């Protein structure tokens, strides 16, 4: 295979339709990449990622710069592609519960739920009340853990590593809770079509309350260290601005949309589980910049804690089974049909389109990760005109999760 010598990736990527270049698939490899003399210009190209501390996950943004101003950006995914959607078509319905959480490492719980809800809908399974409350508990814990992780990452992009250490350390307390009630620290694999897999251990709600109190008591510290930190405020304000109109036009959801002033949250506007029985607010900000997006998440922490406190109060009064009876998973034919389930993950609207042809395995599972919007087209658009040092911050403020895009 001849090495591609003269074409930059930008030129090349436009030429994929050209049959002559069809086989030059290895042009991205370092061994095939020849140094070239740039035309006399102040423009240059930079591979931002896939291995860069400023990048969330293995992902790349290939940017064309003039000085330190981004002229053009191209998102480049695939580094985390594991073919989940294809794999799911080859696995039994139940086996996929172990697969789906891996699609989003920082916030795996909504993945489990969304898939389980789809199977339940196709099978007409009625999830017992108690399981629904336990699921809410899991989801909100996961949201807190994911946000703490994101703050840490975001802070690191502006050089504030202490916040990152704190965030990761405090998230660990939530992982302890996950370990206790789901059996897994990161991938809980707690949901199963029909309900959940485990009853709560004795005294769990007490420990949950203690952890919530602790996390809440830490928030002022975070505020001091990060959210009120003028370095952060000045860096984040006005960075990566997106108007509400743009957000809607670009299909942005979740905290990123709410940071433009639109109070839309799947939990409230397209409710699932028992969210319609819970009291919580939908924090919004108006300015639509990195600062607003981060602040929305900061406020959501409080809402999640609020929801969890309600769960702690109500759960002891919800009795009954935690799972609807399901067929032997080795011989489970899900009735033919299709469904589109939708939940609010920490990053936005997460949807699963699941099709069954009546067989023992899904016929098609389409994962619509929220980041597939804001980590590709939106990121590309928002990066243009920004400065090179803000790219990472923009990306983290969007909370782009590359595995959701790659699947």
């Amino acid at each position, binding site marked *: 295979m001849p090495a591609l010598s003269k074409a930059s990736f930008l030129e090349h990527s436009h030429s*994929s339709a050209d049959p002559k270049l069809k086989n030059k698939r290895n042009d*991205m490899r370092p061994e095939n990449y020849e140094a070239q003399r740039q035309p006399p210009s102040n423009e240059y190209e930079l591979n931002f990622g896939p291995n860069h501390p400023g990048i969330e996950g293995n992902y790349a943004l290939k940017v064309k710069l003039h000085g330190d101003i981004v002229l053009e950006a191209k998102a480049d995914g695939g580094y985390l592609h594991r073919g989940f959607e294809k794999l799911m078509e080859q696995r039994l319905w139940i086996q996929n519960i172990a697969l789906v959480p891996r699609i989003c490492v920082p916030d795996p719980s909504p993945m489990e739920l969304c898939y389980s809800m789809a199977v339940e809908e196709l099978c007409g399974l009625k999830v017992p009340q108690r399981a629904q409350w336990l699921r809410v508990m899991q989801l909100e814990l996961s949201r807190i853990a994911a946000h703490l992780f994101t703050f840490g990452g975001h802070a690191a992009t502006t050089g504030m590593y202490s916040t990152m250490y704190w965030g990761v350390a405090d998230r660990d307390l939530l992982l302890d809770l996950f370990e206790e009630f789901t059996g897994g620290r990161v991938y809980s694999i707690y949901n199963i079509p029909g309900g959940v897999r485990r009853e709560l251990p004795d005294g769990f709600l007490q420990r949950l309350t203690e952890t919530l109190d602790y996390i809440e008591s830490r928030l002022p510290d975070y505020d001091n260290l990060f959210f009120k930190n003028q370095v952060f405020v000045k860096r984040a304000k006005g960075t990566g601005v997106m108007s509400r109109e743009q957000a809607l036009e670009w*299909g942005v959801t979740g905290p990123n949309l709410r940071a433009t002033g639109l109070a839309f949250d799947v939990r409230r*506007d*397209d409710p699932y589980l028992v969210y319609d029985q819970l009291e919580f607010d939908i924090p919004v900000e108006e300015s639509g910049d990195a600062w607003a997006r981060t602040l929305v998440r900061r406020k959501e922490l409080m809402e999640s804690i609020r929801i969890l406190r309600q769960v702690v109060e109500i759960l002891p009064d919800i009795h009954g089974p935690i799972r609807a009876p399901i067929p032997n998973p080795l011989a489970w034919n899900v009735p033919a049909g299709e469904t589109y389930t*939708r939940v609010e993950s920490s990053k936005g609207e997460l*949807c699963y*389109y699941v099709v069954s042809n009546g067989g023992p395995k899904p016929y098609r599972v*389409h994962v619509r990760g929220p980041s597939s919007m804001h980590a590709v087209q939106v990121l590309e658009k928002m990066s243009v005109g920004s400065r090179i040092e803000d790219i990472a911050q923009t990306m983290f403020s969007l909370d782009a999760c590359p595995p959701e895009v790659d699947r």
Partner: protein
Amino acid sequence: MTQEVTHWLDNLLKEIEGIEVRRKSSRRVRVDVPADALPALLELLQGRAGYIHLSAISCVDWIDDDEFELVYHVWSYENHSLVSAHIRIAREPGVYLSVYDLYQPAGFFERDIHEMYGIQFEGSPNMEKFILTEWDGPPPMRKEFDSEAYINEHLSWQEYNPEWLQELVAEGGGVIIPPEEQRFSQKKK
């Protein structure tokens, strides 16, 4: 969604020829339309009913019917309802129109579907490879592509030979049902 809005939407959808509307729940509507009527439908939904959010485009390969199904999930922030518009297109040549002009998120989904299923969306801004940059095989999400067979052909299983296994083999035991046989084969008559 109120009763009124429901009626209004139903009436609106009747304007499209060959349309079939099924209300699956209070917030989910399934619409089947002929492929050529989809842009008009989306335009109608977006322009007159507030379905401004394209949540996703899903593709299903119905290989036995020799068709692809494309499903456009659109959400209305006003009605709080999600319409899934289903169309079928011929598997060959697998060409359809882009809806990028109506919905910008379509750019990503169409690119993804192009990469995974090989469907060409005319008018879509970017049909470049994104995820499978180094892949020159067939579009992998197509049903005829057997990824397990591909893996078995191109990659090998990790071989282990721990002491306990050597001891069992010396005793006359050892590996009887390797996992790949359990998974990939079924007893033949």
